[in-house]
């Protein structure tokens, strides 16, 4: 099946949201669906007014859900009483564009404002605060007030405050906007570590192209709708493999990305039948890892036609000619394959002349 199922921490289903009342009522979100898994960093992009911030504030329980459902770690936010909403926020780390530190308090006391909500013993407050500040490289600034810190340092204090209670969900709004390249990179790697090591789900609203590479997924929103939801890491990996395949060799990088984005990852155990001869063809396969045998049953008996390895593809004939599968493909050892559904495959063939030509050439070559 597709990527190993990870726990869904944020589950947005059919969410509509409106601002204003009566005549002035204006819809900001239209039927939004989004799942964020444990350990995932999702970057949300889109022009201002596209609804990404609205969606983020809904997930952060800073606004009440009007229509649809949002589940945070299994808790339904729709219809949650106000006091419970406030409690929910304690389990979410907020990083705001404006750091909004209390300017009367030292860095340590600012972080303590969040610790006070955690139920940690009072004697631990200072130690926890200093530890969090240490993790953002501010060990030697704990007694500084915000006005004596640089913009980047203030932002890091705010991040320490957001992370000190080890939240499972982190919502960040332009966390790098006010930062120079290096500070921005620091913040991003900090968030990456949180996702990787603590399994936190991180959602970042940003326009900063420099940090897109940290994302597992990039969600693009326009006019209150999720326009695309790209699994960046996976797409990059698929592209890297596809680029080595003969069949995709002449495809431009952007075309390749288009195809890769539509592909899913599937795993098969040893001797599993990936496709069966005579079945209706519904997918196109590229082997990402492992080997597979092509087995053909005919009047003369069963024989293994060929062995496929990493970078080889199969399953295209049934799709192109609208015929049943002409052979069985069986995994030889564990196999991981990228798959493309029939409509996506046919669309890609149609759209990319070079793909069609290459397919033709490869087919000719193979037979």
């Amino acid at each position, binding site marked *: 099946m597709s990527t190993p199922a990870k726990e869904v921490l944020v589950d947005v289903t059919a969410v509509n949201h409106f601002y204003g009342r009566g005549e002035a009522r204006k819809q900001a979100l239209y039927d939004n669906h989004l799942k964020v898994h444990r350990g995932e960093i999702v970057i949300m992009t889109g022009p201002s007014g596209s609804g990404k911030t609205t969606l983020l504030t809904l997930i952060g329980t*800073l606004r009440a859900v009007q229509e649809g459902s949002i589940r945070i770690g299994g808790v339904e936010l729709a219809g949650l009483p106000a006091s419970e909403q*406030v*409690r929910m926020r304690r389990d979410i780390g907020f990083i705001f564009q404006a750091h909004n530190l*209390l300017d009367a308090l030292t860095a340590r006391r600012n972080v303590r404002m969040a610790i006070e*909500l955690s139920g940690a013993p009072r004697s631990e407050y200072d130690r926890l605060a200093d530890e969090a500040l240490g993790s953002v490289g501010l060990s030697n600034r704990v007694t500084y007030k915000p006005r004596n810190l640089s913009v980047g340092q203030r932002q890091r204090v705010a991040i320490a405050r957001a992370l000190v209670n080890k939240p499972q969900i982190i919502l960040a709004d332009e966390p790098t906007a006010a930062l120079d390249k290096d500070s921005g990179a620091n913040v991003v790697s900090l968030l990456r570590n949180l996702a990787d090591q603590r399994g936190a789900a991180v959602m970042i609203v940003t326009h900063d192209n420099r940090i897109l590479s940290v994302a597992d997924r990039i969600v693009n929103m326009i006019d209150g709708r999720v326009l695309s939801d790209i699994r960046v890491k996976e797409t990059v990996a698929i592209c890297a493999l596809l680029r080595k395949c003969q069949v995709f060799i002449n495809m431009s990088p952007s075309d390749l990305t288009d195809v890769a984005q539509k592909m899913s990852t599937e795993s098969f155990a040893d001797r599993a039948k990936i496709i069966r001869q005579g079945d209706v063809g519904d997918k196109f396969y590229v082997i990402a890892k492992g080997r597979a045998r092509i087995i053909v049953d005919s009047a003369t008996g069963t024989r293994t036609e060929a062995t496929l390895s990493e970078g080889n593809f199969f399953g295209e004939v049934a799709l192109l000619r609208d015929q049943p599968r002409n052979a069985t493909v069986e995994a030889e050892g564990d196999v991981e394959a990228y798959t493309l559904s029939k409509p996506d495959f046919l669309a890609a063939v149609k759209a990319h002349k070079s793909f069609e030509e290459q397919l033709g050439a490869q087919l000719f070559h193979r037979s």
Partner: protein
Amino acid sequence: MWFIRQFSLAWRMLADRPARLALSLVGVAFAVVVMFTELGFKNGITDSSANFAGILGGDLIVVHPRQMHLKSYVTFPGAYLREVEDIPGVASASIICTGADYWSNPQDGSRNRVFIIGVDPDDPMLTVPELKGLGRDLRGEGTVLFDDRVRPELGRVSAGTRSRVGRMPVRVIGLFSLGPNFAYEGNVIMGLDNFYQLSPKNRGRVGLGMLRVAPGQSIAAVRARINERMAGKLVVLTPAEVLGRERKYTTDHAPVGIIFGLGLLVGFAIGTVVCYQILFNEVSDHLPQFAMIKAIGHFPRYLTSLVIQESLILSLGGYLIGLAAGAALYGLLQRSTALQMDLTAPRATLVLVLTSGMCLLAGFLAMKKVHATDPADLF
């Protein structure tokens, strides 16, 4: 614990800008001083106006039913008092008659109105210590006791000074201490014979009938008996009731009492506005920070108590400064006006309560803004 922690946060937020805090405290202190001043005048006038009532001795006092206060000069026939004297339980009675006339300044001859208290030299029934030794001397023609807490306009007076009250030549045989009020510049005590000579129309009449109850007799029982016998002719009061009546009359009816009472309200209103301005600015500057406090999961009541504590700190700090300034001002006013300006504990407490009240009121007004902030706007 929670309260102290938050108190320290409220304090840190205020103390973060020392110059602004100082200015705010001065603003609150100003309102406190205004309230102290108004209250001081109000009480000074009331106390001073009622000062004569404060020196009345005896156990019971009988007055004409229409005499609502001590400056109305309504008198009753001396025969009534003799009737009262015969009532069982009444040990002795003494007449006090009051009036007003002009005192001539012995140095420059200028004339000022003084309050004249005519007493029975044998048994004056006034709580004036000087009368103990000098009472009998008041029988001499034109002998008076003069008030030494008067304003300087009345001249330098000591025992032996000769001057005039109205057209009557008088000789000061001693001094006592009472003090002026808004109606009179000073007070003079004289024997009844001298008083009737000065004011012949009062001859044989009584302003205040001072009574002493026989030892072992219940004052209430005697009072009831007098009430029964003299119903419609006289009213019986205790000295404390006369004082209370006098103070209440000044507060309620004399325009000065009302004016300064209003002044106190105005001071409170000014203070509330000043406090509101201070807190409003304080809150406005911190709005995004307050929103952040909400966003990270603090309940709205956390902010409510934060703002309340800020306002309490302001009121307490401002009050202490205002109290010091008020005390200094009272001393100054007492010296310059000779009015009684006492900074008593109940009065200081009243201003403290008013100050806290105005800061809390301002705090609640400013709070609306705090609770209107939407943490969602932070994104």
